[in-house]
């Protein structure tokens, strides 16, 4: 019993710590990568290689005055950042770092919980974030924030459907909604048979996390920003944190669901033993996550932003048919190759 409690505490601690610990270096890494791509250096002053830059920025944000616009809806205004941040952290409770490991004679799953509706849970939680955006825009009592929140919520609601649709194909093939089970099922990463689904998922994930080229909610080059214009200081940092936590979450999902988690480490187990193979699987998993995060930065440095109508057209006229095609492919594969 105590053993169970201890594992649960450790696991939930890790699940909470990963997004929290990874975000500051991630922001630093993004700025460095963007800098390199633009032939400059990026932040390199605070700490070794500028690693503490994000920390310094965070301290600066905490030191700012906590501003609330006149006539703002106090309750909603305060609640909105939390409504955005909390789901993006809650979603981590089902994200698998890998499958099971046997250590000291115990079998430990490298995931906080093996929820049998894990995929559904994640899709459900990402939709809660839309309420945070709507509330933030509405509560600010500012027409710009309101318009921004309309823009963003329309985008997120649309792309959520594509996110779910892309996952349906995976669920059909794996025959399970549990994320560790999906990872276990992948003898070949699903990105190969379901290449269309992977494309749809990546596009939807970019749009869902408000990243370039779908960063219309923020549009930092032309507009000040969208739904969170009226937020400053630590409240603003919550929006920022949730955006990056969602980015990491999306990367973990892509790595687990489409790139096969620790694949192909499990095939090495007969040769190098259980524990080294498990360790290797973890390394592969994390490596895939970081590759995908790099892909995020790389896209941001390359692509210009979509126009609003282009973005909506892309969602409904391109991704939706592709998603349905992906579902058809998955069904056919399930009845033939995967039967």
């Amino acid at each position, binding site marked *: 019993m105590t053993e169970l409690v201890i594992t649960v505490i450790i696991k939930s601690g890790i699940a909470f710590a990963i997004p929290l610990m990874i975000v500051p270096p991630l922001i630093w890494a993004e700025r460095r*990568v963007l800098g390199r791509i633009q*032939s*400059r250096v990026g932040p390199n002053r605070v700490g070794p290689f500028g690693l503490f830059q994000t920390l310094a920025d965070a301290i600066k944000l905490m030191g700012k005055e906590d501003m609330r616009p006149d006539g703002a809806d106090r309750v909603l205004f305060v609640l909105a950042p939390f409504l955005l941040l909390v789901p993006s952290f809650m979603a981590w409770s089902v994200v698998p770092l890998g499958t099971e490991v046997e250590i000291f004679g115990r079998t430990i799953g490298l995931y906080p919980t093996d929820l049998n509706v894990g995929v559904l849970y994640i899709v459900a939680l990402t939709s809660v974030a839309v309420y945070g955006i709507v509330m933030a825009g509405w509560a600010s009592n500012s027409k710009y924030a309101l318009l921004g929140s309309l823009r963003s919520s329309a985008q997120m609601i649309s792309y959520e459907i594509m996110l779910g649709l892309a996952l349906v194909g995976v669920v059909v093939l794996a025959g399970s909604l549990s994320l560790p089970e999906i990872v276990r099922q992948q003898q070949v990463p699903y990105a190969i048979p379901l290449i269309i689904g992977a494309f749809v998922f990546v596009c939807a994930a970019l749009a869902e996390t408000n990243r370039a080229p779908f960063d219309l909610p923020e549009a930092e080059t032309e507009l000040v920003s969208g739904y969170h214009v009226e937020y400053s200081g630590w409240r603003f940092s919550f929006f920022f944190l949730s955006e990056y936590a969602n980015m990491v979450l999306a990367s973990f999902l892509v790595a687990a669901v489409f790139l096969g988690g620790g694949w192909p480490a499990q095939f090495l187990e007969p040769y190098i033993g259980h524990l080294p193979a498990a360790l290797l699987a973890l390394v592969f998993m994390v490596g895939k996550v970081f590759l995908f995060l790099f892909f995020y930065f*790389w896209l941001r440095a390359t692509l210009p932003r979509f126009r609003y109508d282009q973005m909506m*057209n892309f969602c409904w*006229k391109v991704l939706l048919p592709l998603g349905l095609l992906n579902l058809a492919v998955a069904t056919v594969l399930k009845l033939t190759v995967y039967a």
Partner: protein
Amino acid sequence: MSFRFGSLVPIARGLSVTLREFFRRPVTIRYPEEKRPLSAIYRGAVGMRRRPDGRPKCVGCGLCETACPNECITITTESNPAQPTDKVVTSYTLDVGRCLFCSLCVEACPVEALEMTNAYDFATDDRSTLIYDVDRLMDLVDKQGKEAATLE
């Protein structure tokens, strides 16, 4: 469908360009840790040369003071009782904050006491420190000699 898969080709091409840039060295020169090499004929602040015994080469004739269009050179002299043909320079100051690096003083000097050095980093938060006395002017020349030596 308004979307053509051919439109993914330029995206891929763009991605390859940015990836190539990623592996290239940044063009940034991290001043003040790194400095851009100066041209051999770079014209920075005016410096004062030394005589073999270490004293300034200036004879106090005041021609540079007259030549200076910005009046940034100030010389005060005394007569030398032991050698009435010579003057003793009691102070020689040059206000770098007013200098326009025109080199007219260097050309005016009959004994080639002045030269244009390659010093350019005089930034300070107090203007009065920009008025260089003769020791600092001689330092500029000395430092330049050292830097030129390390460059070669």
